[in-house]
């Protein structure tokens, strides 16, 4: 099926600003070619510096960056640094996520709905403000503008029914053959309806480590075949929890009287993910574990690690919003602006020029 809208020329996003010695070295190496790269030891595995360094190295496997030769994706020095940085990240996650191989119990826990929850979608549905919805969407754009891409890497590592069912879900994410219904495209439509810049990577500089870490975890599990079980666990977490969360975001947007084009993305996910939940549980996880029972602990790890990272992201948003502060590193113009007399590491004093106007204009 052919789409109705004009095809946009592909433009790789610009390299971001560094956030410390590791990300500075990576960005410099991407631009000029690797020279001497610093050791990863000592960088906080959840911090801005390491997460941005990882994000940039992973991005070379997706769309790359403007001015960076595509071949640098497989530069051995950069790949070695990526593996060292992701090992640090992985070790931190393994230390935090209690091990278990009881996949049924883990899934069962995801399938109950609290009467009253505390995450960002609960806050937004109940008394979120428009600028908070925009912040949420801007940060989510790092994943949703490449929605389903990190999980597509696992296809080649699966076999038989698990592969067929995962591809069915991915096919639906990619619009089931209709480019106008691709979820990444619906997300871009929502961004424009919220006066956000929908160009790929537009909010990378604004996104804090907590937002990068969620996407980095998907890329990590997608790229490493050894983590195929964890990737399936991550995928299951998203598909199992997205339907009710999306419903709350629909409520938030309707309550704030936001345009229907903005509501459509999350409205689509309420229905789509009610189906995907069933397909992932019955079609992917059950046959995967029948074929490779040894992967059970990794599936649980994928579920728990994505849960921990989702909690960190949600806590950051709610902590900042409770103090009437922007959760972005560079606030959007309609958000509370940082107080220049009170420097704060998480609130750089130089607000970035707004990205409400498309960068290409």
């Amino acid at each position: 099926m052919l789409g109705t809208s004009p095809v946009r020329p592909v433009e790789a996003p610009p390299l971001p600003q560094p956030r410390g010695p590791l990300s500075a070295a990576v960005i410099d190496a991407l631009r000029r070619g690797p020279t001497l790269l610093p050791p990863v030891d000592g960088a906080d595995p959840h911090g801005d510096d390491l997460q941005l360094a990882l994000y940039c190295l992973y991005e070379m496997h997706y769309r790359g960056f403007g001015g960076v030769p595509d071949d640098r994706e497989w530069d051995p020095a950069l790949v070695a640094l990526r593996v060292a940085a992701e090992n640090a990240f992985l070790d931190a996650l393994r230390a935090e996520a209690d091990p278990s191989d009881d996949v049924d119990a883990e899934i069962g826990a995801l399938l109950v709905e609290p009467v009253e929850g505390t995450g960002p979608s609960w806050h937004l549905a109940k008394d979120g403000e428009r600028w908070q919805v925009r912040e949420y969407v801007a940060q989510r754009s790092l994943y949703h503008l490449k929605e389903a891409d990190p999980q597509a890497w696992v296809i080649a590592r699966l076999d038989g029914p698990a592969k067929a069912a995962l591809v069915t879900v991915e096919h639906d994410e990619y619009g089931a053959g209709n480019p106008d219904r691709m979820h990444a495209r619906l997300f871009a439509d929502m961004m424009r309806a919220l006066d956000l810049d929908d160009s790929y990577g537009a909010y990378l500089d604004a996104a804090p480590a907590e937002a990068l870490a969620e996407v980095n975890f998907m890329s990590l599990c997608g790229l490493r075949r050894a983590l195929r079980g964890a990737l399936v666990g991550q995928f299951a977490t998203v598909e199992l929890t997205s339907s009710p969360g999306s419903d709350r975001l629909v409520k938030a947007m309707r309550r704030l009287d936001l345009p229907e084009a903005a509501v459509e993305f999350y409205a689509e996910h309420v229905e789509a993910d009610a189906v995907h939940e069933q397909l992932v549980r019955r079609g992917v996880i059950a046959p995967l574990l029948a074929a490779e029972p040894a992967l059970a602990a990794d599936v649980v790890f994928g579920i728990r690690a994505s849960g921990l990272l989702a909690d960190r992201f949600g806590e950051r948003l709610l902590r900042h919003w409770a103090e009437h502060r922007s959760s972005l590193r560079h606030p959007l113009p309609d958000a509370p602006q940082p107080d220049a007399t009170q420097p704060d590491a998480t609130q750089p004093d130089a607000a970035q020029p707004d990205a409400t106007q498309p960068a290409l204009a």
Partner: protein
Amino acid sequence: MPDRAPDPARQVLVTDEGPVLVSGPVDIVLPDGSHVRSDRPVTALCTCKRSRRKPFCDTSHRRKVRSSNEEKNNGARH
């Protein structure tokens, strides 16, 4: 879908917890005679009658828990 039948008959999977899963694009006729079409590869039709998007499942069949102390519970975090 598990256990796909060898013949080309459309598979309808009746779950024990919530929706009925129907494979392929479907045309659904509602009690008032109106039609709703779903082009999804698989459609989940509500049978618990709690969905706010009938005839489609919206996961409203899920068990509700009062205390969000039941941590592990992901629904609380999104």
